[in-house]
């Protein structure tokens, strides 16, 4: 009863402290909101479509042959890329560069006049060019130019190269990179079509076909067939997957809720520390000594303080979870595992904070030491990098921290996991809690014996 009286008094004390409340509740919510907004508060990561101007100077290689420039321009403006590129056609390269220089567009794609001619020109096929590099002779390339220079790209030297130029705003990185990747893909398709045409013509010639008209027709059909096949979808695809631990009822959590989990655990440590510091504060104010003159045993008094620390972080985490549900639409998972993981979080935060405080002699010392330890743990535990995309050595290191285990548990719940996914994290955090509580008790007993 006396322990609960002390716990209740301490809990009330914390929730009368406006600065403490701001740190415990407001800071994680504000940070999560800001980071969630920065990386897309909705369901997935998203960026706005890149404003792109396209100038197509290619008139084709002659009657009856397809115009490569038109095909490339058409590919850029295709409905499938609408979410990534907002394409506008302009008439001249100067107009395109001006649009970029004025900030009206993030990148300009300048398709040269001789693109089709270069593709149809006779000659040995060569390898495809890489983005941002000069083109190899006899093929289309994609040199990238920064808009700040105001210069156009120089064509490949010593050969009838056809260069599709990308003129970009130098202050942007992601948008022009997307444009370059799309253009590169288009150019590769053109080069592939050209290679298919040349190969079919050479095969026909080696089989005795000598009529130039029929050879041209055959090459044109081969190129068209390649282009159609490329647009229809590649027969070989690359599918990269991360290893999973057990079956999950998979769900994609939003970014804000993922960030909030890391912030919640991080600030729970600080909340617990603030509350645990009341032991030092009371020691300095003389109220702890006075408590020791009452018939309440010292174990009951310290137990009451422990309970208060646990209660404070438990309330803090419940409020943050509810706020996450309310403001970020977070789906924390099934009620049972969420409750267990929340209790484990409060336990381990309380025990770690008490251990930190048991070493300290002054509030300032406690604040400095605790902050350093908590930030270090948060860095290696992964509180600042979200709950996904963690692997390799980092995934191993984080398991040496209680917060790392907690994050792992929350990761499972956020992505649709349940009891099976949190069993190990729960066991690990409970083990950490027991060790921390035991050490803190030893140090406090030694101090207040």
């Amino acid at each position, binding site marked *: *009863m006396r322990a609960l*009286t002390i716990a209740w008094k301490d809990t009330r*004390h914390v929730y009368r402290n406006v600065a403490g409340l701001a740190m415990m509740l407001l800071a994680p919510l504000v940070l999560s909101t800001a980071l969630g907004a920065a990386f897309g508060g909705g369901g997935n990561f998203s960026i706005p479509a890149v404003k792109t101007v396209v100038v197509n100077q290619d008139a084709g290689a002659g009657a009856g042959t397809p115009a490569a420039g038109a095909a490339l321009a058409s590919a850029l403006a295709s409905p499938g890329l609408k979410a990534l590129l907002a394409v506008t056609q302009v008439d001249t390269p100067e107009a395109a560069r001006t649009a970029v220089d004025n900030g009206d567009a993030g990148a300009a794609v300048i398709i040269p006049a001789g693109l089709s001619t270069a593709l149809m020109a006779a000659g040995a096929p060569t390898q495809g060019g890489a983005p941002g590099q000069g083109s190899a002779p006899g093929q289309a390339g994609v040199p990238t130019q920064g808009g700040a220079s105001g210069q156009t790209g120089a064509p490949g030297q010593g050969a009838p190269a056809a260069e599709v130029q990308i003129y970009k705003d130098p202050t942007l990185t992601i948008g022009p990179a997307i444009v370059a990747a799309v253009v590169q893909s288009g150019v590769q398709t053109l080069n592939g079509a050209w290679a298919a045409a040349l190969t079919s013509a050479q095969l026909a010639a080696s089989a005795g076909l000598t009529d130039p008209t029929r050879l041209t027709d055959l090459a044109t059909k081969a190129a068209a067939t390649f282009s159609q096949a490329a647009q229809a979808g590649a027969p070989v695809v690359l599918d990269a997957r991360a290893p999973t631990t057990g079956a999950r009822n998979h769900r994609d959590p939003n970014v804000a809720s993922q960030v909030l989990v890391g912030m919640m655990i991080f600030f729970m440590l600080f909340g617990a520390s603030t509350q645990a510091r009341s032991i030092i504060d009371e020691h300095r*104010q003389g*109220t702890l000594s*006075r408590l020791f003159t*009452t*018939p*309440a045993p010292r174990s009951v008094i310290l137990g009451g303080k422990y309970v208060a620390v646990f209660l404070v972080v438990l309330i803090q985490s419940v409020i943050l979870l509810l706020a996450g549900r309310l403001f970020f639409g977070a789906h924390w998972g099934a009620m049972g595992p969420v409750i267990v993981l929340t209790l484990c979080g409060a336990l381990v935060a309380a025990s770690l904070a008490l251990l930190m405080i048991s070493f300290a002699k002054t509030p300032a010392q406690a604040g400095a030491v605790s902050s350093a330890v908590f930030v270090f743990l948060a860095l290696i535990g992964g509180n600042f990098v979200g709950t996904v995309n963690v692997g390799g050595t980092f995934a191993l290191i984080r398991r040496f921290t209680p917060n790392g285990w907690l994050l792992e548990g929350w990761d499972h719940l956020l992505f649709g996991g349940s009891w099976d996914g949190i069993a190990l994290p729960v066991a690990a955090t409970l083990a950490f809690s027991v060790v921390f509580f035991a050490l803190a008790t030893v140090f406090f007993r030694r101090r207040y014996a």
Partner: protein
Amino acid sequence: MDAIVVEGLRKQFDPPKGPVAVDGVSFQIQEGEIFSLLGPNGAGKTTTISILSCLLKPDSGDARVAGFSVSREPERVKGLIGVVPQDIALYEDLSGRENLLFWGRMYGMSGAALNSRVDEVLELIGLTDRQKDRVDKYSGGMKRRVNIGAALLHKPRFLYLDEPTVGIDPQSRRSILDGVKDFNAGGVTVLYTTHYMEEAQELSHRIGIMDRGIMIAVGTHAELVKMVGEQTRVDLVVDREAGALAERWRSFPGVASVSEPEDGRVWLLAEDANTLTPLLFDSVRALGARITKIDLAEPNLETVFLHLTGRALRD
């Protein structure tokens, strides 16, 4: 009947090189009396009261409160005592009433009995009207009164007050001294520590004088004063050469003791002040100095302390 018996208490902080705060202190307090521990800062008063409050364990010796050992039966002792610490030990973000309720619960009280007792104590300390105000809004004197009230909730048989009047205004001090007398009149045995001679003299049935961890004298006021016989305290202030004069006065016939000079002020104990005074003036004149103030006083506790230690109480 001895209610508190202290035998050979010794306490050293940070042994083996730390200071010995209390060194072989023994005394007894009788049921129903006010016993004061008088001494300058660092005399060992607070350490003694801390041991009697079961806050500190003695290195050796023991104390029994109503027959219970503070070392072996602290839980029994704690139920009998009310402790008023030297510094205000209250929760400033709680109201006066909330503080009393909290401390009452710590003494095992609850429910209607606790509420009723809190009302009584608030009445006793004169804070019924301000009971709902937060303690950090109280004046220093009001805080002191709540500090005392928190120790009275469980109607303790023994009340320990550790320098309860330090740093407060004369009116609050008067109120506290009168309150202590009232508690005692109600049957509470009081252990009171102070470095104010006047308080000890006014309140106490008996006084223990402590200095540097040692109990140097115990007795009633009359018994203690009798220790210095018919000596008169001469309090002088000279404008220069105080050190040389004090040294010279120590060799004068009929001078029992001379204090260390402080800002030109020297106290001495004289068996015959009428004979000594002209000699003092002569010696001062001989060194080219001048007496700017002289005061003759009948023996009191200050005189006793001076007589026993060679130092003033406030040194």
